[in-house]
């Protein structure tokens, strides 16, 4: 029952997010602030993780296909496929569920427990639009973050490949460029948009509807991380089934 209730409330929140919009002059500053917090604020960690995980993917692939019959350029190919298809869109989104998600839940939750949300509502402001909509818009730039993750993942793989002596730069690049399928890019970015939506709205839901005090803000952040990741994994499965098979 509580699951149904939560899901219902979540969709009502989504609907409410588009109703009675906040004055544009105010909304504009909120959007820029959220772009700064959610997008630019995440670039550092995303770059760091992408580069090194890309490297690890390459090393492991190279070590696992230690067979003279398999051409060396497959290392680059395999790295590109795993980075573009799964690692950048999905793995990074799970990391973002922790970073961006808990930030959103705790900042909205704190506004709830300190009655700042009540203060907005008293003024006749649609608090859901005021708080969630700018995050939703800011997260529309999330594909930009994921593109960087893809690029750096492949770059990290290249660095690892050359430093580790697994194959030559030419082989790696040949592999990266091999059998390029644009539909894979479409698939990756459809996923990215869906995850961006989840990353903006699920944590907002857990922050907005929380009850209690400071301790509960912490708990809500954890719950929000768990459910955002679960939904990302589930929708990843569904979308993959729908689009690739």
């Amino acid at each position, binding site marked *: 029952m509580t699951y149904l209730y939560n899901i219902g409330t979540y969709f009502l929140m989504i609907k409410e997010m588009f109703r009675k919009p*906040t*004055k544009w*002059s*105010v909304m504009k500053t909120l959007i820029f*602030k959220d772009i700064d917090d959610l997008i630019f604020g995440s670039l550092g960690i995303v770059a760091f993780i992408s580069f090194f995980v890309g490297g690890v993917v390459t090393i492991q692939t190279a070590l696992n296909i230690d067979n003279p019959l398999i051409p060396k350029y497959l290392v680059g190919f395999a790295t590109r496929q795993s980075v573009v298809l799964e690692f950048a869109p999905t793995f990074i989104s799970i990391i973002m569920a922790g970073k961006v998600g808990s930030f959103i839940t705790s900042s909205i939750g*704190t*506004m709830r427990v*300190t*009655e*700042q949300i*009540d*203060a907005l*509502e*008293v*003024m*006749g*402001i649609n608090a859901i639009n005021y708080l969630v909509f700018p995050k939703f818009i800011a997260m529309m730039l999330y594909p930009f973050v994921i593109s960087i993750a893809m690029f750096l993942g492949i770059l990290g793989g290249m660095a690892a490949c050359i430093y580790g002596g697994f194959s030559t730069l030419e082989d790696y690049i040949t592999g990266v460029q091999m059998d390029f399928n644009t539909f894979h890019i479409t698939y990756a970015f459809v996923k990215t948009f869906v995850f961006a939506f989840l990353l903006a709205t699920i944590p907002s839901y857990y922050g907005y509807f929380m009850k209690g005090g400071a301790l509960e803000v912490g708990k809500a952040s954890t719950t929000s991380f768990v459910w955002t990741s679960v939904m990302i994994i589930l929708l990843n499965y569904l979308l993959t089934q729908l689009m690739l098979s």
Partner: protein
Amino acid sequence: MIEVKDLHKSFGEAHILKGISTVFEKGKTSLVIGQSGSGKTVFLKCLLGLFHPEKGTISYDGKIYANLSDDEKRDLRAEMGMVFQGSALFDSMTIAENVMFPLRMFTKQSKSEMQDRVDFVLNRVNLFEAHNKMPSEASGGMQKRVAIARAIVNNPKYLFCDEPNSGLDPKTAIVIDNLIQEITDEYNITTIINSHDMNSVMEIGEKIVFLKDGHKAWEGSNQTIFKTDNEAVTDFVYSSELFKKVRQMYLEERQ
């Protein structure tokens, strides 16, 4: 003037407000007092339209809230100011931005008009140099003043304050109480203050509504509160040793 008739509010099974009727007059500071948990905050949030009562009516200068259209409700909301118990300042904005916020949202004033108005209300609550501080850098008393400034910046007709002096030292508390009363007087506002503080009662209690377990147990003023025989009220008033002693002395003197 705000008229409340037979107000009921429940949360699930818990019946919190059990039929409250009273009138709050214009230009007057009215107090709603009672122990923690007696329903003061719920009552105030019903008056603000944040909670929807199951039964009863609230009317603002003759307009019954429940009968208003959404637009009319919004217009009415714009005439209300609220000082929350914990001040509820937006912590991502400076003090001046907090006070300017309702103006930015609801008026078409130019930047300099807004700034003048912000200066005016901040000066009115005796804050002269705090404009660029963040709320977290301000003391509790200062935050309360900012909250009051934000509540009155849009010239409200109705001002609600939830325990405006909780967490303040007695001296600052009285300053805040007096400030609210002066502002009420000056701008002819209908003001309602929630409190459990006897100092407020003595200082500004020209009209007092006493809540107990969601009922209105008594109504009067600071002139009559010390004379009533209502047990719930005397229990509340004389819960502090100081007041007990004062009452004893008074009774002895009378004999």
